[in-house]
């Protein structure tokens, strides 16, 4: 039996469980200085002057960098990942991103925007000095909330964006959708808030930069999800140097969740500081600083309407969403509620027509970018909340309304109205399996029992789908003189266990020992180019790429083996890690063939010349064809009406991730994803103060991170319905838990409160909000 599909324990664990992991903050360099960012305390202000003179001579200070100096040096600015032509307003006019310098010069537009970068011998010295920088701010009116920003007469974040609208985008056919609503037997309407969250990877962001003045080479250690995109951005857009002069290394990374995809100002700043001051410079974010300077996630308000015929079948779907972009359109920010989820807005249902109108709204808050799922959890949240409500309104059960509208497995590949081609899936089966797993039928008895204890019990169901794939990343397999197999990939694991899963593929495919394989990742020079790890696409990219590269290795190996064993190529088969001469017991192990090919001395001159790199081969999975991970989530919870506290009692998931390469790791991805969904639904809330746009939930003292005692154990199983569009047959699993969880939890909360007269619930349903909701419902009932 091969290693693929086995729950192999992770090889990377060895260093982490013994404290031998190497994160950016663990990198040591002789004579390194510490960088510290002085940040704006105001949400919106004009900078009248910055005086760094006193601070410059403070003890231990090496130097201070300001925005004006960077402008003078021609340093470039940060920006969005989407070209203007790719993502524009529905009337064809360009969107507005604003203009984000590494260090702002004239205005600050959110609390936490960096104003100056202090470099000192120690963090304490840098902080002491930063307190002596005199910034003369002229405070301006600020907007932090979507509604504030859209208010007529609201202060503008950017003068070129009237009404604070950064992007006014739409998909679908408005007229056809309107027509569908005209003939509807029933229309369900819902207004939803998708609360703002802080990513909070346990390792904060950090960067360590060096500049070698002899060679002119820059080297950056960064907490990233991929070295190449960051290297490209810094080299091309910011430092404007040839790419080969910058090496970005991503060592061990303590979680990313979308946050660490982007290039943040501090990364080029440590390189600029290193060049200027002649020593390595490290910057590590502190947690409270991270709350103000990391990109945030979600933060949108939607009004959605679903038109049904008399049989409860969907006729049309209309969504109007406004999302908070923050003060700048950076990274994937402008696309996260528009183009990123556009193929899954209709969920797993046969939705004939859709009109999805999305506006990005500027506010004086930290930019909003990718957070696990990036747009797809938001899309799933809207459609699964509205389906739940529609079922209640039409008197259908939660499974029945879904069964009536599911795309059927026999209809696949199914081209949806929104243009997605769903290759495979069996939504009905997963739903049935999950109902059974969660003992859906036994719920009434559990609810009655809870009632006796004074608890309100509810259950919620959600069926999610997402689309993953794309972004070619190369794979290079090479053989070292020491007999090891190096696998270079353009993806970059930061908790996903690629050292284990990718090695399993290589071991199975090439028949080489699992422990002879080394993964080379997260290095813009040593690893082949790739878009990094994000969007649940790494196995799609690198896994399928490994198959390709391995095929090339075998092809070359066959040729070499034939020469070595003095036989014809077509007489050679490759089995169990060896090239065998058909019909004989003659064979050569792959690693021996690889070594012979590398050394070359035993090869015919022509072959030796042609195989200059021995068996080393590369491969890139570039085939079109998305994957559509999907699954059913069922949440059961209890509410203490006396305090409003919600306790999740059980949580069940049945997923379809196609071929499951490592069940242990896949389960872990789902558990973690679900926890983030539960966290958003019940606990987490990033709040800015109305009127001032001051960050209110600015540390773990105020921002509720889910803890062990907030969560249940999870029931997770899967059906392997192979993806037909990639050789491994896999579907991405990294974000799926988060995509399905929030609607399942919120549907359960509504179910628990429904009999109390509650009809509207918004995330997060904290104890306070549940209690207030119950109070309002009781007051209404009393009228």
């Amino acid at each position, binding site marked *: 039996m091969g290693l693929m599909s086995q729950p192999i324990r992770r090889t990377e664990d060895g260093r982490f469980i013994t404290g031998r992991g190497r994160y950016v903050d663990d990198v040591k360099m002789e004579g390194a200085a510490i960088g510290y960012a002085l940040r704006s305390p105001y949400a919106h202000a004009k900078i009248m002057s910055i005086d760094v003179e006193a601070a410059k001579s403070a003890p231990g200070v090496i130097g201070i960098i300001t925005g004006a100096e960077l402008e003078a040096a021609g340093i470039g600015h940060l920006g969005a990942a989407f070209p203007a032509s790719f993502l524009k307003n529905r009337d064809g006019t360009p969107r507005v991103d604003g203009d984000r310098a590494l260090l702002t010069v004239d205005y600050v537009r959110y609390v936490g925007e960096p104003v100056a970068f202090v470099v000192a011998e120690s963090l*304490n010295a840098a*902080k*002491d000095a930063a307190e002596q920088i005199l910034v003369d701010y002229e405070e301006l009116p600020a907007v932090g909330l979507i509604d504030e920003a859209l208010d007529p007469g609201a202060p503008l974040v950017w003068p070129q964006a009237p009404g604070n609208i950064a992007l006014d985008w739409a998909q679908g056919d408005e007229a056809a959708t309107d027509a569908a609503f005209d003939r509807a037997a029933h229309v369900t309407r819902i207004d939803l808030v998708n609360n703002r969250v802080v990513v909070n990877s346990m390792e904060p962001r950090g960067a360590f930069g060096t500049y070698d003045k002899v060679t002119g080479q820059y080297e950056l250690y960064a907490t990233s999800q991929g070295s190449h995109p960051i290297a490209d951005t810094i080299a091309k857009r910011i430092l404007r140097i040839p790419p080969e002069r910058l090496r970005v290394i991503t060592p061990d990374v303590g979680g990313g969740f979308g946050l660490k995809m982007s290039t943040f100002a501090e990364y080029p700043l440590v390189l600029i500081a290193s060049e200027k001051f002649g020593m390595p410079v490290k910057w590590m974010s502190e947690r*409270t600083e991270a709350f103000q300077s990391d990109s945030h996630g979600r933060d949108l308000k939607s009004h959605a309407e679903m038109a049904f015929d008399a049989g409860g079948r969907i006729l049309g779907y209309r969504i109007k969403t406004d999302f908070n972009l923050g003060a700048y359109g950076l990274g994937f920010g402008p696309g996260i509620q528009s183009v990123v989820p556009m193929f899954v807005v209709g969920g797993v249902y046969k939705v004939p027509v859709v009109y999805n109108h999305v506006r990005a709204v500027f506010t004086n808050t930290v930019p909003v970018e990718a957070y696990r799922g990036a747009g797809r959890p938001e899309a799933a949240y809207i459609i699964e909340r509205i389906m739940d409500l529609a079922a209640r309104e039409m008197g259908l059960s939660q499974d029945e309304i879904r069964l009536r509208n599911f795309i059927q497995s026999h209809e696949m590949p199914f081209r949806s109205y929104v243009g997605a081609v769903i290759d495979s899936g069996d939504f009905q089966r997963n739903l049935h399996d999950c109902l059974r797993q969660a003992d859906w039928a036994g719920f009434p008895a559990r609810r009655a029992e809870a009632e006796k204890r004074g608890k309100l019990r509810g259950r919620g169901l959600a069926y999610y789908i997402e689309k993953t794939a794309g972004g070619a990343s190369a794979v290079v397999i090479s053989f070292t003189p020491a007999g090891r197999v190096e696998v270079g990939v353009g993806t970059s694991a930061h908790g996903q266990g690629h050292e284990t899963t990718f090695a399993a593929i290589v071991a199975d495919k090439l028949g080489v020992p699992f422990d002879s394989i080394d993964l080379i990742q997260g290095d813009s020079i040593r690893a082949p180019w790739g878009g990094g790890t994000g969007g649940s696409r790494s196995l799609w990219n690198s896994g399928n790429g490994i198959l390709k590269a391995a095929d090339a290795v075998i092809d070359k190996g066959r040729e070499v083996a034939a020469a070595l064993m003095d036989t014809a190529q077509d007489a050679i088969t490759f089995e169990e890690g060896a090239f065998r001469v058909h019909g004989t017991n003659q064979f050569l192990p792959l690693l021996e063939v690889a070594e012979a090919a590398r050394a070359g001395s035993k090869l015919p001159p022509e072959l030796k010349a042609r195989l200059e790199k021995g068996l080393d081969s590369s491969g890139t999975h570039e085939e079109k064809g998305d994957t559509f991970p999907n699954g059913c989530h069922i949440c059961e919870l209890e509410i203490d009406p*006396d*305090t*409003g*506290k919600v306790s999740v009692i059980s949580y069940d998931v049945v997923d379809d991730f196609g071929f499951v390469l490592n069940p242990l790791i896949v389960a872990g991805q789902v558990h973690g994803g679900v926890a983030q969904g539960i966290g958003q639904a019940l*606990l987490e*809330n990033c*709040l800015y103060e109305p009127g001032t746009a001051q960050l*209110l*939930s600015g540390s*773990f*003292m*105020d*921002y*509720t*991170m889910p803890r062990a005692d*907030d969560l249940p154990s999870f029931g997770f199983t899967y059906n392997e319905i192979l993806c037909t569009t990639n050789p491994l047959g896999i579907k991405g699993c990294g974000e799926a838990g988060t995509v399905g969880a929030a609607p399942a939890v919120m549907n359960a909360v509504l179910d628990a409160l429904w009999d109390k007269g509650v009809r509207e619930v918004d995330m997060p349903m*904290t*104890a*306070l909000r549940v*209690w*207030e909701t119950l109070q309002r419902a009781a007051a209404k009932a009393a009228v």
Partner: protein
Amino acid sequence: MYAFDYHKPRSLAEATALLNANPEARLLAGGMTLIPTLKQRLASPSDLVDLGGLPDLAGIFVGDGEVRIGAMTTHATVAHSAEVRAALPALAALAEGIGDPQVRHRGTIGGSISNADPAADYPAGVVGLGATVVTDRREIAADNFFTGMFETALEPGEIVRQVRFPIPEAAGYAKFPNPASRYAVAGVFVARAAGGVRVAVTGAGPSVFRVPEMEAALTASFTPEAIASVLVDADDLNTDLHATAAYRAHLVGVMAARAVTSALES
């Protein structure tokens, strides 16, 4: 953190002398509040006087109808003390609910009450039990000790040595924690003793406070039902991200009833 000088006195007298000699000095007990405060640069003492070198300040004595706990006794020690669990289980349970296990291994009763955080647990126990705070110079009744938000009756340089809790007939503590910080949003300590019932609330107001209406009702009938109709006025209570004043007022009632139930079960 701003720079400071550090001292670890070997006697209470030495500690007092250090405090007297350095008006900007601060006492360091477990450090669970002070060190985070220093890290955030919210305080800049000239000197820290670490009480960790005074073993006489730590320890538990049960007898003469009271539980005496030395100022430097950690929450974990109180929580796990067989003597406290037997004599005053509600106080052990209160200690077991403070912060998290690591905080309980360092945090001390003296530090907690001297800091007088409005959301700390111990003030409810101290006031609810009518304890006596013993300092290096006098004894202070619980009702006079907590004077406001982060304010106590302690004079400059005065050092808490011990807290003496009279053992009640029955006592209970219930709190609703802040989901993020795990401090009390509302915590209620209820104790029934020969002299009557005391009800002390932490987390809800600017400082720990008693609820005379509940005390009267519970003195008449020590049951959760007895206080069901007692409403706490929300006007003086705190509002923050996690709880409005109205919610806190409601929670005080719920937690008080749970504390009574707990007292009856113990």
